[in-house]
């Protein structure tokens, strides 16, 4: 079975030359050299919120899980009930350790009755593959890591027209639906999904048509004022929606429940990794929880690891933060402890390099946008 190479050095997207031609700033992300920004995070953010943006996300993992034992294997590994996904539907799930801590969040696409396509984070692809391999299957399962695939995302209100231009019929896809299409006679998985809070599509295909597809998408979005967008803009977009990011807001020392992701956990589907621990924690109460923080003043921008206080009592730590261009103020995600130390609407203080900034505890999303 093909293996993911250990990242001795940075991996390269096949589109690097396209990014350089557009003047992108490239930087390391999860073992890959990826475009961080082109024109700038703010203008790229605006393109996605108001028009359309194109992202290269080739660093994300792409794993096929197929065969009569595939469903049974996935059900033991991921938290959500994969049976709930009909053919042509996708499902957000977590992979937990036995303690209920989050090893990974991923999306599972059901391409056929017994054929699934799993997209883990770049840094975790090997780990997820290993967990799947070690899971006893009750029937045949073929696991396949696609080293030779690329992953593009088209996000924003005009994305429907752009993708429809190249892939007729995809405008009818509902949120979290997927279809197998083709481009230049090569297979392309087209899904109505994303990580920006806007209507959007994600496209998976072979790297040998990456350039053609990238250029065709750029051309198709030109009439709509589209822009190539980097990972910096993507981080701002996902934070405005309060979407947690693996490695930043999700890690093994916090459980799915503490991360506020119980909606992606199906307790009644049967046994899965971490289930017993989550049930116990649900009984005993949560030691911490992930909340949104909206700063009162524009000049206060929370950043990862800033401590959170109520008066002199340390009650939490910021895990992600940025400046929200839509709200024109600082926003962030933070774990607070114990979970009930502050409620939505309460005021807490973030220690910003020695100065206190007041923040309101909110339930994300921070902005009124919807990907549906």
């Amino acid at each position, binding site marked *: 079975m093909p293996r993911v190479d250990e990242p001795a050095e940075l991996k390269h997207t096949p589109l690097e030359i396209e990014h350089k031609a557009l003047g992108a700033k490239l930087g390391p992300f999860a073992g890959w050299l990826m475009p961080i920004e082109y024109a700038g995070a*703010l203008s790229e953010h605006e393109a996605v919120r108001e028009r359309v943006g194109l992202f290269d996300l080739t660093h994300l993992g792409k794993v096929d899980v197929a065969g009569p034992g595939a469903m049974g294997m996935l059900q033991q590994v991921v938290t959500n009930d994969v049976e709930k996904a009909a053919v042509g539907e996708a499902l957000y799930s977590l992979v937990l350790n036995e303690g209920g801590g989050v090893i990974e969040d991923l999306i599972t696409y059901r391409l056929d009755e017994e054929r699934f396509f799993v997209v883990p984070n770049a840094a975790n692809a090997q780990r997820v593959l290993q967990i799947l391999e070690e899971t006893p299957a009750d029937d045949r399962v073929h696991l396949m890591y696609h080293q030779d695939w690329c992953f593009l995302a088209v996000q924003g209100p005009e994305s429907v027209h752009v993708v429809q231009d190249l892939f007729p019929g995809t405008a009818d896809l509902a949120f979290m639906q997927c279809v197998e299409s083709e481009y230049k006679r090569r297979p392309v998985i087209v899904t109505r999904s994303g990580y920006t809070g806007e209507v959007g599509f994600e496209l998976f295909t072979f790297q040998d048509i990456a350039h053609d597809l990238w250029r065709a998408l750029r051309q198709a979005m030109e009439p709509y004022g589209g822009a190539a967008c980097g990972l910096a803009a993507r981080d701002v977009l996902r934070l405005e929606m309060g979407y947690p990011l693996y490695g930043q807001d999700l890690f093994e020392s916090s459980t799915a429940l503490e991360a506020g992701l119980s909606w992606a956990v199906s307790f009644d589907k049967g046994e899965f990794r971490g289930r017993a621990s989550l049930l116990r924690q649900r009984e005993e109460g949560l030691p911490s929880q992930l909340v949104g923080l909206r700063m009162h003043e524009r000049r206060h921008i929370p950043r990862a690891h800033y401590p959170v206080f109520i008066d002199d009592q340390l009650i939490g730590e910021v895990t992600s933060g940025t*400046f929200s261009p839509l709200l024109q103020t600082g926003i962030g995600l933070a774990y607070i402890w114990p979970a009930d130390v502050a409620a939505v609407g309460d005021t807490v203080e973030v220690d910003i390099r020695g100065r206190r900034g007041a923040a309101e505890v909110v339930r994300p999303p921070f902005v009124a946008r919807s990907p549906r």
Partner: protein
Amino acid sequence: MEFPEELRYTKEHEWARTEGERVRVGITDFAQDALGDVVYVDLPEIGAKIQAHQPFGEVESTKSVSDVYSPLAGTIVERNPLIEERPELVNEQPYGDGWLVVIAPDDPRATDGLLDAEAYRSFTEDGAA
């Protein structure tokens, strides 16, 4: 990337322009490009005393926050009144309307010890950041 000849530079990526007995200070084109879109600038009050090579303010972008170091010792006599409302000026005109403060230096010859344009350009090209 611009490195105006008439300016002096620091290895922390500030520029200094001598204007009579005063010195105008900002961050360089290289610095603003590395930072990304600036969303907030924190500057000292007029009258504040600042030390050479010590942080006197902060420039915050969507990505991160960076200290701004003073090229010389002195007293703040002006701060850019536009920058609070329009922090993007730091990106758009780092050597123009995106200036940060004007300093009355303790030592009128203090800028002599800073890098000239050519030395600063080489410094940035050597991969220093």
